[in-house]
């Protein structure tokens, strides 16, 4: 028996769940199909960074739109999602890096964006007292912060369901097809049909796009993270480095999350990742050099989530360039968590109204019809 819905969303990450929720708010009844469970992969196990800082300019409008939602996240999902806003700081480790920061901030200002602010060594040490003396400054985005990713994704999923979204977890979407003007998707013993199909399947989304004649340069990646045993509180903002792969965040319980994008080997079809301890070792040495206070902590857990990375490191977002009613929302390239709340809102606008005030055209899948562009920065 075929169940008629207003939209079918494939993928229960933060993006699929946020889109489901915003479609419900717009009065639609979507079904969300997730082969594992909401937040099983990148959305539930990422570093939780809520970051406008250091984004590709193509993403900034979506990021700013998201930030406004993050700041009132409880009103949307009845859960504060563990969101804390102590800013994010990009640390320059030498003068050459600081010069690059200066140029970046000037460029953003020229484009009308003011969320990134150049800071000198004094302000850097005021914000991050524990950082090594040798660092000359950096950039701060003061409204940024971090949240609990699994809790956040679960909250979006829960709220979407409360507002009328049908959620099917543990069931893969199969036989995706268009018949008589409607998208049909099988999910176990059920078949759903809807005029709208949202491809939010993360690392699995490239296959769906390719199936419908829109192959894109996407690879599956598994960024690694590790967490320490609790240490006395010593840092508030999230710290990232200009020149090396590191992101760094202390939670209220004292544990410190160390990330930055070193990659594990993903085994996508087994939902499994094999960690690369030599690269995690590099993260550990970087932490140890920059934050003496961390040297005697212990690492209690390391992991990696599976997600999609586009060749140009910005997501695929918006309507299909080939099929009416098909929308893509994937390829967030290791930095899509913060974008989730806003992306869902914008996607709902695109679906319901056919347009949005938020500039997302730079993220269109159509960009891959032409020769692959180089990264925009």
């Amino acid at each position: 028996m075929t169940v008629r819905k207003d939209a079918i969303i494939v993928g229960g990450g933060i993006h699929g769940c946020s889109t489901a929720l915003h479609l419900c708010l717009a009065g639609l009844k979507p079904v969300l199909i997730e082969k594992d469970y909401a937040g099983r992969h990148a959305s539930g196990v990422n570093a939780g960074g809520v970051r406008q800082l250091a984004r590709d300019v193509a993403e900034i409008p979506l990021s700013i739109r998201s930030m406004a939602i993050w700041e009132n996240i409880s009103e949307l999902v009845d859960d504060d999602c563990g969101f804390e806003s102590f800013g994010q700081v990009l640390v320059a480790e030498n003068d050459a890096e600081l010069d690059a920061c200066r140029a970046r901030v000037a460029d953003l200002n020229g484009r009308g964006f003011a969320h990134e602010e150049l800071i000198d060594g004094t302000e850097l040490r005021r914000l991050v007292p524990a950082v090594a003396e040798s660092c000359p400054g950096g950039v701060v985005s003061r409204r940024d912060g971090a949240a609990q990713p699994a809790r956040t994704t679960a909250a979006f999923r829960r709220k979407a369901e409360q507002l009328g979204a049908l959620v099917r977890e543990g069931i893969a979407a199969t036989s995706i097809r268009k018949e008589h003007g409607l998208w049909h998707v099988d999910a176990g013993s059920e078949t759903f049909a809807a005029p709208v199909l949202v491809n939010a399947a993360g690392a699995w989304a490239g296959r769906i796009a390719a199936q419908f004649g829109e192959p894109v340069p996407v690879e599956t990646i598994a960024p690694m993270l590790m967490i320490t045993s609790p240490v006395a509180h010593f840092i508030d903002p999230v710290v990232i480095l200009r020149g090396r792969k590191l992101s760094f965040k202390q939670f209220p319980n004292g544990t410190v999350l160390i990330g930055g994008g070193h990659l594990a080997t993903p085994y996508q079809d087994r939902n499994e990742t094999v960690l690369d301890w030599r690269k995690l070792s590099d993260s550990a040495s970087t932490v140890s050099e920059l934050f003496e206070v961390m040297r005697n902590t212990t690492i209690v857990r390391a992991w990696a989530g599976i997600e999609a990375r586009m060749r140009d490191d910005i997501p695929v977002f918006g309507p299909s360039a080939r099929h009416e009613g098909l929308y893509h929302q994937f390829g967030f390239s290791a930095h899509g968590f913060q974008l989730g709340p806003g992306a869902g809102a914008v996607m709902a606008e695109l679906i319901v109204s056919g347009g949005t005030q938020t500039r997302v055209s730079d993220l269109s899948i159509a960009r891959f019809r032409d020769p692959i562009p180089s990264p925009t920065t």
Partner: protein
Amino acid sequence: MSAAPKRDQYDVVVIGAGPAGLAATATVADAGLSTLLLDENAGPGGQVWRAINSTPVKTEALLGTDYWSGAGIAKAASESDAEIIHRATVWSLDRNLELGISVGGGSAFIKARRVIIATGAQERPFPIPGWTLPGVMTAGAAQTMLKSSGLVPDCPAVIAGQGPLLWLLAAQILRLGGRIDRVLDTTPRANYIAALPHAFAFMTSPYFLKGLAMMREVKAKVQVVKGVTELSASGDGKLASVTYVAAGPRETIPADLLLLHQGVVPNVNLAMAAGVEHRWNELQLCWTPVLDADGNSSIPGIAIAGDGAGIGGAQAAVWRGRIAAVSAIKALRPAAKVIDYSSQLKRAERGRAFLDVLFQPAKQFRIPQGDTIVCRCEEITAKDVLDSVAIGATGPNQLKAYRRTGMGPCQGRLCGLTVTELMAEARGKSPQEIGYYRLRAPVKPIMLSELANLPKNEDATKAVVRG
């Protein structure tokens, strides 16, 4: 790092120097394979034969003949050509058979062609009200102190729970002049009837007479209360009393020490973190790895022997160790002559079904209620878990998002089984359907500085420019 492994590649790496690991090590090394045995303890023996070379308790009768039977196997391993490293922690193992190991404050990676995991058993969590109070500990911890240091209780002490180890420990404490005020036996009465069909095999096994004698020995010296159906510990900041119910009025007795034991279960953390497939064992009520008759797991090259393969006791562990070793020899030295140990294993496993059924812990001692703490690392109660289920947590991994259970330093060792069974019951599902925590390396915490000091490669230090 003076004790670091001599090579960076071995034919066979054995993890754990208990009965299975020692037997496996001697067998593969004697076949001429380059062999490394890694063990966390100061000397060989594992839990069962702990401190076999160093215990101050030298009088044979005090620890029993089963204990001393380990000496010969430990000797065979140490006299083989195998390299043996004690105080070595294996903190990572992956499906490429690469191991991250820590020895003497330094870490290194080694590669193996075959890995035999012999990490044995751990005690089943026994979550009762008050089990986190100082003064409450596990029977296994008490036995560790007894074997390695000759320490026994000299204060008002109660032992509660069930299973062979409980009686063995009680007997050993009493033989060494230690104090036990009461034994509270939680074996459900119905289990005696359920176990009857397996009784014949058990009575003809070596366990039967030994077990009977040990129970008689304990009962002659200490009041034993059978059929305990409720148990709690209380005290202000530390244990002061133990309360129990056994087919009569509730009784409270003063105690400074409560030793809890609800049997042992496979220690699955390393194997699960490596990605080995496990299934819920309905008889032993725990996760056991999916293995073939030779102990080979779902990951090519990784075998599991001993109690980590499913609880079978020390004698079965020895034979499982040898069988896994033979399988490795057959794979790496096809021309070598090998012996088939399957009949010896079968004999050693005789009677196990009786013990498994008889000592199946009662539901109320596996699935706690209300304010009883389930996850000790994050102080999460049974009620907290049920509340999370009510708002959408569907399994142990989703529960992490709500309550951080299993994310502390013990990585779920002390709450994993409880969380699975508690959630299974709350959701009307089987433990197999509910699943277990996805476990992660490091399997044991590693110092950040130690990780930082690993040998470096160039790729990872390449600068990345953020857009």
